[in-house]
């Protein structure tokens, strides 16, 4: 098992290297270099250009030198100092911009993931075991509705409902009075009060999809001979269901769990904008629109890296869950 993990981690290295190259290429794509756009924007706003500061920046990013020197300076800055470069639109280091938002994004993502699992698994199992019962039909309808309605529409409706009937402040993750307050229990509680809306909205599509996947997987397994064997042994229906077919039906699901990681970070830009959530999605969108290339490039690299890590995680999880993968290679 350890050997398996080590080998997978080793495989990641070339992939990550290529990803960094592509991200760097994207940073270099706009005409002119970072400094030219900086000087241009400063000139546009009427600021004086400090020659000394420019020279320092030129030195820092290796501008004017061959591309591989620039790449090396950029990537060594990230790897050795955690320095992703400067966002010229925000006039802040990219890393400060990223980490603050990543933390909240991850929290929303995690809650959404749990919400999705907790709701989808029992419903999916029920749907499969009681196939074509009224309960299955209800779950199916909810599933299709959840998949078909765009998330931002659900967001608007839920915001309206929360505002109109519960008189709750909507949008953002905190009420105005807690926005800049220090962390304490009251602020945490306020966060939870706001959190459920994005969690439910972002979770609906995922839940609906997961119900369908679970149902389909389980239906494939329910009539396999090993289930009959377990039944002939004298196991009760509930015990044999959870121990055998549900266990096997988890595999295809686990193998895709890694992809939710980047999707949760990047995929909900529209919902985040509608709800004005301080997450990473809107930031990426804005960075791309305003050609803030160090920020955008760092984002793309981070998302790609998350995809690779997520895939690794699901591979490891799958190997841990399924001996056929762990032992036959």
């Amino acid at each position, binding site marked *: 098992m350890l050997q398996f993990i080590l080998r997978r981690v080793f495989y990641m290295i070339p992939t990550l290297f290529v990803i960094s190259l592509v991200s760097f290429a994207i940073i270099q794509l706009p005409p002119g270099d970072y400094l030219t756009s900086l000087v241009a924007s400063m000139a546009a706003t009427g600021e004086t250009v400090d020659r000394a500061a420019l020279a320092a920046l030129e030195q820092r990013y290796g501008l004017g030198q061959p591309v591989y020197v620039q790449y090396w300076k950029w990537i060594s800055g990230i790897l050795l100092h955690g320095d992703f470069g400067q966002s010229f639109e925000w006039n802040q280091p990219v890393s400060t911009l990223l980490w603050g938002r990543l933390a909240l994004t991850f929290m929303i993502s995690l809650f959404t993931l749990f919400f999705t699992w907790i709701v989808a698994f029992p419903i999916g199992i029920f749907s499969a075991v009681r196939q074509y019962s009224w309960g299955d039909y209800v779950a199916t309808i909810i599933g299709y509705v959840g998949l078909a309605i765009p998330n931002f529409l659900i967001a608007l409706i839920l915001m309206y409902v929360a505002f109109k009937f519960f008189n709750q402040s909507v949008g953002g993750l905190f009420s105005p009075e807690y926005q800049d307050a220090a962390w304490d229990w009251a602020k945490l509680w306020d966060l939870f009060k706001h959190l459920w809306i994005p969690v439910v909205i972002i979770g609906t599509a995922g839940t609906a999809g997961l119900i369908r996947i679970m149902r389909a997987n389980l239906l494939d397994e329910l009539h396999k*001979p*090993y289930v009959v*064997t377990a039944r*002939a*042994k004298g196991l009760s*229906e509930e015990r044999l269901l959870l121990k055998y077919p549900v*266990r096997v039906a988890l595999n295809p699901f686990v193998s895709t769990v890694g992809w939710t990681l980047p999707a949760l970070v990047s995929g909900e830009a529209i919902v985040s904008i509608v709800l004005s959530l301080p997450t990473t999605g809107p930031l990426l969108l804005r960075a791309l629109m305003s050609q803030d290339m160090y920020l955008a490039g760092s984002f793309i690299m981070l998302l790609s890296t998350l995809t690779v890590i997520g895939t690794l995680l699901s591979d490891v999880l799958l190997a841990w869950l399924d001996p*056929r993968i762990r032992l036959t290679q």
Partner: protein
Amino acid sequence: MAGETLLELKNLKTQFFTDDGVVRAVDGVSFEMKRGETLCVVGESGCGKSVTARSILQIVDYPGRVVEGQILFHRQRQEEGKSEVNEIIDLAALDPRSRAIRDVRGKDISMIFQEPMTSLSPIHTIGDQIIEAIRLHLPVSKEEAEARAVELLRRVGIPRPGDRLNAYTFQLSGGMRQRAMIAMSLSCNPSLLIADEPTTALDVTTQAQILDLMRELKDEFGMSIMLITHDLGVVAEMADDVVVMYLGTVAEKGDVDSIFHDPKHPYTQALLRSIPKLGLRAQGIRLDSIRGMVPDPYNRPGGCPYHTRCDDFMPGLCDKITPPPIEMGEERLVRCLLYGDQKAMADQTQQTVKVR
């Protein structure tokens, strides 16, 4: 012990309720099994032999269910500290999900299946699955169950049984898997082992080893075996008694010698003629096969179910009258209009006409 009745099937009917209609997979099957004997149930694919076996344990897959008849199981149990308990249970009357039937499954009657690769869970070790079966029915600790599992694996001829406890099915050969399956079925000393084509998926050498093993274990564990097969070679080797099934009914039954040497039913005769024999080709004789196909299950022929393919078809009789079971000496029975009292048959025709 031997000679006592163990299991009686009385007019068992199992039907599948599909959207296209009702399939009468088992249509009035009656036979009896004695303690300690091996009974072979033979027939073509789709004749209802597997469904009969599954009906006994009430594990027929949805949308099938036992709709009529009795399955009387004569249970003999030696409970701890108590005297022997004898009782007769009608398995057909039990709810398929009830505790009572679950208590019989795997303990008094256990079952092994055709494909040992798919019949054991691919993601649990064989030890896990055997220990589960033991602990489900016997009040033993985990360690005791493990020791018993190792003992069982050794008994069925698996080398290094202690290590193999942690093996998964895909790490074992077909023969070893079936041995593991047999070990699991023996875990609670069942009085009846139902084997549903246990050797069909195995190569011939392994087949012979598994059959030998089953014969040994039968005597050692003092159990009866119901062997479902379409292989008449296996029947000749294993059976004490034989039940020949056709389209969900018993065509003929009797002891193995009379079935093989004096088959009465035209279907049995045709089955025996279709066994390949060495040297036939040299004599210029072609191997016989039964003409036609098994009829569509949604569209069963009236009268004798076999009349559409029978060489001895009697027009006006076989397609009108459902043949009653006719006793042909002790423990021998055939359902064919060639035998028995023709006048009684004619009377029955009249009766059927009257009823209509």
